């Protein structure tokens, strides 16, 4: 998608290459493309309007030099503007040092409150806290069970009084309970509700009035459309939201809602949900979100993830192997395992600009993402001789038959593995350098 915007810019700038300065018409063309990009990313219409007006003034003043790429310069400017609007630093949660910190999660139905509650509890647990989850969704069938089962998997206690008590009474009782158990972070999972449902909004107000809450976090689906601003506004009016958690960012949504909410309500976005696993939960980083809204691929996040998974020496060694064409099946298996630690392979493919083309051509997404698939590959590679692993090209028909018998897999599995290995080997050879990635 970044490619789209960059391509469009290139076309505009090709025409003006020798002018050195943008005239009104060029600016108009650029702004038009940026506007479309933002609207397609679901940034609120009124926010886009204001944003484009400001940018128009800026561009008129700015001298776009011909030595620098004008496209790069403008995208950079837009990117900075969005980043600035999204907030300049990480926003930590407010922790009460003297008494238990109480956090309430609110939001529309299906935005991911229960999932987020468990992720947040896990986040605190990892930081050495003793979190307690409080189940107050007495409306949705099996909502309490969902929280209990998910929390049990990571050994975090859930306080519940079933479905007959009011939400505020459940929280009060949980507070008492937490004093006995020394829980220092209490996370309230509330029922999903419509902002126009007065009865349910009153319920939240009641909790807010009776309990001293450190954080009131609004859970927002990153795929939300234009109306998100309206519903968030009412949650703010009724209970005063202190922060936003953006969920389901592991899809391909551009997440323009982040920009809208920050701009209209001024509330910081604190965390993002990036997958179905409990650890797929990260602090919100404005610069990365900005490039995502513009459709530029979340390069920074990937680099960081790759860096935590590989040590520098490992990368160097791997790079050398690639260069020397020594990359063999042993390495291949190791890489698959590593990639699994970083995230799913398709996640990685999505994040790197330029990789999407491979994604369509090579179905590497089938690889390594599933435990079963990985086990099969492990079995196949283990059934090979050292020589075969180092030089897969010698694996002929009779060797394949032997490996198939040894690993308990089908011949077609082995053929597929070898084909994929060759494709990956080819792909790595042609891989664009991530760190030298530039706008042009």
């Amino acid at each position, binding site marked *: 998608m970044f490619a789209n915007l960059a391509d469009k810019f290139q076309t505009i700038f090709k025409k003006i290459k020798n002018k050195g300065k943008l005239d009104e018409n060029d600016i108009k063309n650029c702004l038009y493309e940026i506007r479309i990009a933002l609207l397609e990313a679901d940034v*609120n219409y009124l926010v886009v309007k204001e944003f484009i007006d400001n940018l128009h003034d800026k561009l008129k003043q700015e001298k776009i030099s011909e030595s620098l790429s004008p496209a790069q310069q403008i995208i950079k400017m837009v990117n900075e503007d969005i980043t600035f609007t999204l907030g300049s630093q990480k926003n930590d949660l407010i922790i009460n040092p003297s008494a238990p910190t109480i956090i309430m999660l609110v939001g529309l139905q*299906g935005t*991911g409150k229960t999932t987020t509650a468990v992720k947040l509890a896990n986040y605190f647990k990892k930081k050495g806290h003793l979190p307690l989850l409080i189940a107050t969704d007495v409306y949705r*069938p099996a909502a309490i069970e*969902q929280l209990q089962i998910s929390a049990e998997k990571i050994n975090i206690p859930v306080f519940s009084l079933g479905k007959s008590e009011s939400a505020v009474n459940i929280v009060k009782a949980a507070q008492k309970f937490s004093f006995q158990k020394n829980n220092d972070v209490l996370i309230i999972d509330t029922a999903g509700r419509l902002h126009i449902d007065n009865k349910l909004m009153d319920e939240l107000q009641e909790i807010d009035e009776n309990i001293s809450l450190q954080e009131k976090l609004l859970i927002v689906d990153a795929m939300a459309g234009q109306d998100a601003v309206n519903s968030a506004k009412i949650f703010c009016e009724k209970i005063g939201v202190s922060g936003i958690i953006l969920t389901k960012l*592991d*899809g391909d949504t551009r997440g323009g809602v982040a920009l809208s909410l920050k701009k209209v309500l001024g509330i910081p976005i604190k965390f993002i949900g990036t997958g179905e696993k409990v650890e797929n939960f990260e602090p919100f980083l404005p610069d990365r979100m900005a490039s995502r809204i513009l459709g530029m691929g979340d390069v920074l996040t990937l680099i960081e993830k790759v860096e935590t998974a590989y040590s520098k020496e490992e990368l160097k060694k791997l790079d050398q192997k690639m260069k020397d064409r020594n990359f063999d099946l042993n390495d291949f298996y190791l890489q698959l395992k590593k990639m699994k630690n970083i995230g799913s392979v*398709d996640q990685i493919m999505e994040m790197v600009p330029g990789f999407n083309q491979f994604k369509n051509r090579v179905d590497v997404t089938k690889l390594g993402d599933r435990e079963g698939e990985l086990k099969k590959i492990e079995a196949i590679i283990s059934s090979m001789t050292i020589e075969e692993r180092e030089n897969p090209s010698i694996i002929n028909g009779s060797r394949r038959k032997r490996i198939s018998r040894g690993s308990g897999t089908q011949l077609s599995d082995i053929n597929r593995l070898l084909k994929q290995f060759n494709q990956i080997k080819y792909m790595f050879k042609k891989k664009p350098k991530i760190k030298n990635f530039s706008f042009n």
Partner: protein
Amino acid sequence: MNIKNIFMQFKEGLYKTRKEFAQKLGYLFSNSKDKPEFLDKLEELLILSDLGVSATSKIMNEFQQINFKECQENNFIFFKEKLKIILMDILNSVDSVLKIDEDRLNVIMLVGVNGSGKTSIAGKLAYRLSSIGNSLIMVPADTFRAAAIQQLSVLANKAKVEIVNTNEGADPASVVYDGISAARARGKNIVIIDTAGRLHTKVNLMHELEKIKRVIQKEAHNCSLEILQTIDATMGQNAITQANFFNNSLGVSGIALTKMDGTAKGGIVIAIRKELDIPVKLISCGEKLNNLYDFQAEKFVEALLD
């Protein structure tokens, strides 16, 4: 319940949507000084309703042609009619009713992204179909999300229909296999399958759905298969991509639009219809089991512009 009542309820559910849209529309037409201002406001209205850039451009193009002064004299009824015709044209669907075939087994499979309302729709659909005399069995193929099976069981109980027994972590395709066998053994005519929510970009999870579809086609090869994708009315333009992916993987036969009881305009339906050949079949507005309606394009547009 007769058709008229159903439509009244449908309209009532859409009341908030309608009120806001209509208010803005009236304001839009009566307060524009000239054509550019009118077009600006029209664009604002359409984008804010999640119609998306592409559908909005199409509508804007049609309005570029009009003689503003002349139309102003005929007041805004003219605009309304014109807008209605254009929206109808985009939404135009040949056959958008959920069909139950009396001669064979009917399998309804619900798919969609996380939190879009699959389990709720499953419950509502079960209630509706069983109350008109069908014999159903529900299949909890969402064995991934904690307590999803329990949630569906509660809804099945409320709707007084049977549900297949299974456990969290079971293979969804084998649960579906069991469901179809059970439907055969117990003489059911409808099977409703609730699947786990998944983002359309998760290739492996999409393959899992394809496998489920293959099991259905193999085990009930003569069945009438309906694959419904739930789309949340509050969703933005990503819903188009979602529909595209699910459709490419499975061949989606209809869309169930959920959560229309909020203030979201549901314009995403028009955006999806503009891009894809998938009819919207059902619309859900409200949390009660009976808050499920057949989607009627004309009524939908009328309700919006009323």
